[in-house]
């Protein structure tokens, strides 16, 4: 990211926009083709400001073929997406410098939309203990997270045809790279999700909990929003990130945003699953879950997935076996387990 304080500043269309200059930051002493926007900014009582930054790679066309936005860091402990944004910005900067004509469309990257939570590596916005991804679509909230959520939705709506919202899993589960789609949006989103080099595309019914999320609100506003889940929070899995990164470049190419002469690399065809094809395995006991198989394994019915143990008494409380053949696409990583805690999800080969 350029050193914003040392960049030339100007006001355009209500945005406080900064543009890289030739005599700008020494570490980026050449034209990067990157425009940095602050889409929300609030002064911090202890100095400086809290800001949401958007990095824009413009199109060579006056009317871009498509406008794609990448969003990361709504939950401040989900770092896989933040790293993915770094990879995307780094790659597009190089491309802009060497092959600017490749940019037929426009790309926006929002690498850290919940900066305070990211700085303290917590899911919630720490000062307010609020979940920013439960504040979307609210008209009345007057808190800082609500205000930032509103600014983010408005800006994405104004500048995107397609949005990719990167998430890692929560504190407990590790996920294979996947896209989750609410049923009512599946016709529009499945073809796009198929371009993204995912292991799984999971179509699931809607529920009230989604109504306050970014993905749902954008899709309701007719902006195609893909919600990516990959890895686990507080960690970066470079293998998963590389897979998703290749998928995002493929998406940019297939939607015409990037026009590259060389043939696109082959990508994975995701397993498209519906709720009946997902077997959720939960703990029957409280204890420590010790897994026996790696995430991504193709398991057979009866295969040992792990066990729940009582660490105090030295007992095995239960052994966990696969209920069917399929792909292990979710696996518990955080061992402390209560009754009912999800331990694994399997994408079934056959619908029961």
């Amino acid at each position, binding site marked *: 990211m350029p050193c914003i304080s040392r960049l030339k500043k100007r006001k355009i269309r209500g945005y406080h926009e900064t543009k890289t200059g030739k005599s700008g930051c020494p570490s980026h002493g050449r034209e990067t083709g990157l425009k940095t926007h602050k889409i929300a900014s609030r002064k911090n*009582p*202890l100095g400086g400001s809290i800001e949401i930054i958007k990095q824009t790679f413009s199109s060579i066309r006056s009317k871009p073929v498509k406008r794609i936005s990448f969003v990361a860091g709504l939950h401040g402990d989900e770092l896989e997406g933040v790293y993915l944004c770094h990879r995307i910005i780094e790659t597009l900067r190089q491309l802009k410098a060497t092959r600017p004509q490749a940019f037929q469309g426009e790309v926006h990257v929002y690498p850290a939309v919940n900066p305070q939570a990211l700085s303290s590596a917590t899911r919630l916005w720490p000062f307010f203990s609020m979940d920013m991804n439960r504040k979307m679509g609210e008209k*009345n909230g*007057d808190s800082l997270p609500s205000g930032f959520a509103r600014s983010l939705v408005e800006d994405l709506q104004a500048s995107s045809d397609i949005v990719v919202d990167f998430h890692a899993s929560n504190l407990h589960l590790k996920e294979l790279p996947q896209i989750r789609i609410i049923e009512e949006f599946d016709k529009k989103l499945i073809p796009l999700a198929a371009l993204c080099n995912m292991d799984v595309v999971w179509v699931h019914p809607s529920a009230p909990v989604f109504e306050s999320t970014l993905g749902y609100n954008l899709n309701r506003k007719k902006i195609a929003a893909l919600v990516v889940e990959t890895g686990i929070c507080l960690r970066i899995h470079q293998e998963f990130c590389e897979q998703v990164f290749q998928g995002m470049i493929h998406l940019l190419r297939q939607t015409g945003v990037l026009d590259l002469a060389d043939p696109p690399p082959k990508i994975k065809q995701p397993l498209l699953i519906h709720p009946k094809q997902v077997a959720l395995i939960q703990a029957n006991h*409280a204890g*420590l879950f010790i897994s026996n198989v790696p995430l991504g394994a193709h398991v057979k019915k009866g295969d040992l997935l792990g066990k729940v143990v009582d660490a105090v008494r030295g007992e095995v409380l239960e052994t966990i076996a696969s209920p069917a053949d399929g792909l292990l696409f979710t696996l518990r990583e955080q061992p402390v387990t*209560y*009754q009912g*805690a999800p331990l694994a999800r399997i994408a079934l080969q056959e619908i029961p």
Partner: protein
Amino acid sequence: MKETLLSIPSPFGPAVTLYKNWWEGSKSPDDVLSIVSGLHGDQVNGLYLNSLLTRFLDRVVEGLEADFKLKGRVQIFPVVNIQAAQSGSRVWSFDDLDFDLAFPGNDKGETTERIARAIVTHTSDSTHGVILKTANHLYEDAPHIQLADPDRPTKKMAQNLGLSVVRKLPDSTTFQLSLFGHWRENDIPSLIISAGEPRTLDRSLCDSLFTGLVDLMVHTGVLTTSGNKKQVAKLQIYPANAEHNIISSHAGLFVGEVKVGSCLRQGQKIGEMRSIDTGETLEEYAAPVDGHLITLRNYPVTFEKESIATLLSDKKQGFWPF
């Protein structure tokens, strides 16, 4: 009677146990009042208030409160977010979930979902519901009632609590996920009482709310009294558009000069923002209209464009004619 509703084994400590206290005047009572507190682990006024009610109802059942007789059923759920209450925090750090966004829950799900489901199951036959809360993190609320779209039974409930200020809750994308939203969807006449601030016990406030809740029990029919019937309160109803939010233009240290619950005149000073670095006054805040100061920031460190106070304007209020 104390009844265990759910006991979830813990990997290392004692089981997570959800319980309710309940009292019944007859075998199949027509009226069932449910009172819930502790949805967030740091809201202690509700816990204390429910302990007062528990002591009172025990005495009623034992015949030690000569003026009162139990007719219906009262059930009190004093601590819902058990693990958060144990750690003195708003949410349980294990899942970082806002408990009041976990309804209607799932009896086969994770701990939070199971507890939420148990609350829903055990309050489903309620004829009246009350949720006890405080202001959100960083703020203090003057005692008031919060309602959605109130029907006549709910209005009657509100009228009997001894509180005059009623806020109509604005629409929210998360309303359905809250216990209150769930009760409303299931046509349970219900309201929220919000009073005080998190992490602080205000005993005098709880004492006055206790009296109101006893009156509410009489009104709902779960309790009868041989004493004089109290006069109902005249309610001041404030829709969402009657709320005036005072927003900071500067970041700094907010120093308030008025007490929450005050009736302010237009132009009256509410407080000021001072620079943490220099101590200079950056901004002064005054009431934009005549109104009731319902919420005031009590945590001084403040970002730019944050809410300092909420004033309910007299001009846009409505009255319910009782």
